[in-house]
């Protein structure tokens, strides 16, 4: 039970590693962006894990209830921000991928490099 308290952080580390692996090792540009999205989501999980208080509830104050524990609102605010950053980066990345496809006819990194070297 003690150890299960760290389970969220282990999942964070593993998902983080899976995402980073995809970003670095995959040659397909869309796959890289998917990896980037996974990688960023892992960090969201880390932040949200810290906000939880045992026996707490979402930080919406209910009048007339004394002694209610609430979860920490701050990491939630930070991650709301980070989620929007994530979708913004993804959209920008995809726009560039679409243009790369039009300019090079491929979205595989090695083929793009070859095409510039031979040109």
């Amino acid at each position, binding site marked *: 039970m*003690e150890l299960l*308290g*760290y*389970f*969220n*952080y*282990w*999942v964070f*580390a*593993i*998902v983080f*590693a*899976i995402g980073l*692996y*995809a970003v670095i*090792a*995959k*040659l*397909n540009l*869309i*796959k890289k962006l*998917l990896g980037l999205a*996974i990688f960023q*989501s892992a960090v*969201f999980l880390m932040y949200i*894990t*810290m*906000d*939880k208080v045992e*026996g707490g*509830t979402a*930080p*919406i*104050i209910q*009048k007339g209830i004394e002694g209610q524990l*609430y*979860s920490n*609102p*701050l990491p*939630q*605010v930070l*991650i*709301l*921000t980070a*989620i*929007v950053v*994530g*979708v*913004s980066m*993804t*959209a*920008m990345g*995809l*726009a*560039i991928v*679409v*243009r790369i*496809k*039009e300019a090079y006819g491929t979205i*595989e990194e090695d083929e793009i490099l070859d095409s510039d070297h031979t040109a």
Partner: protein
Amino acid sequence: MIEVVFGVFLLTLLVITAVAVVRTENLFVAVMLMSIFSLLMAANFFILDAADVALTEAAIGAGITTVIFLGALALTAQREKRSPNGRFATLGVISVLAALMIWATFDKPRLGDPDAPVHQHVAPWYLEQTPELMGIPNVVTAVLGSFRGYDTLGEVFVVFAACIGVLFVLSAGQGLDRGLFAPDPESEGLRHHLIPKVVGRLLVPFIVLFGLYVQFHGEYGPGGGFQAGAIIATGVILYALLEGEASALNALPRSVLLGMVVGGALLYTGVGVAGMLLGGNFLDYSVLMSDPVIGQQVGIVLIEAGVGITVCGSLLSIFHAFAAREAR
């Protein structure tokens, strides 16, 4: 207890989905799995008491991101070419990194520990002071809108930047007039399919209504500008899928969308500057009204509106920029 078991189950599924996203060579499948990944993540957030974040992740991560990915896939490729083997070095380095991070977890406060430093400093102050200083129940909205309103302003500008970035990058080559402003009149969406049409038509108004509810109820329950903007955008995207790109653009032309993006950002910054002109600091809403608590509430409602308008306009502009582009 049951929460912990459920959490472990969901997180295990999360890892499996992530592996599947990376391994599958069909990009379409990968994007769909990514959507499931986001939904699982949202469910996890909900278990962890982060209702606002769960709503945002479901709307933006599972909804909008998937649609944008699909739009890009239609313009690029459906399948990934087989990556060369021999990536073991990368795998090795990253495994070491992950092991290091797992090792570091044992010194962290464990999940739900009420004595963790994060629950001792700053956060209790927010929970105590919000009812007094703002008079609204949702502390997340209070922190987002006022205490850390400057971050949220930055966030609105990130979305704004993404919107102009996508428009700028995708306007190259095709020219604004042809590629971006004239969608294919032949595209008819799913108009000829009876069931999606009927169900969709029924759904669209409710989605938009729900979006508006989330927008204006953000001070009292989970919700706010980000979520509302994303939800309304999904409603319009559903309309575009049913009735075709062109009808959606007739209803909400690009110039209106761009106006929303600009207007929302200006509204937010304008509220901040108004605080300055009335003798406070930037983004100080207390000076907006004679009663500081009412001033805070007015300020938060206004900036949340700015956030919602910009997010909705940006996401729709981005969607149209991808969807209206012709594959070549």
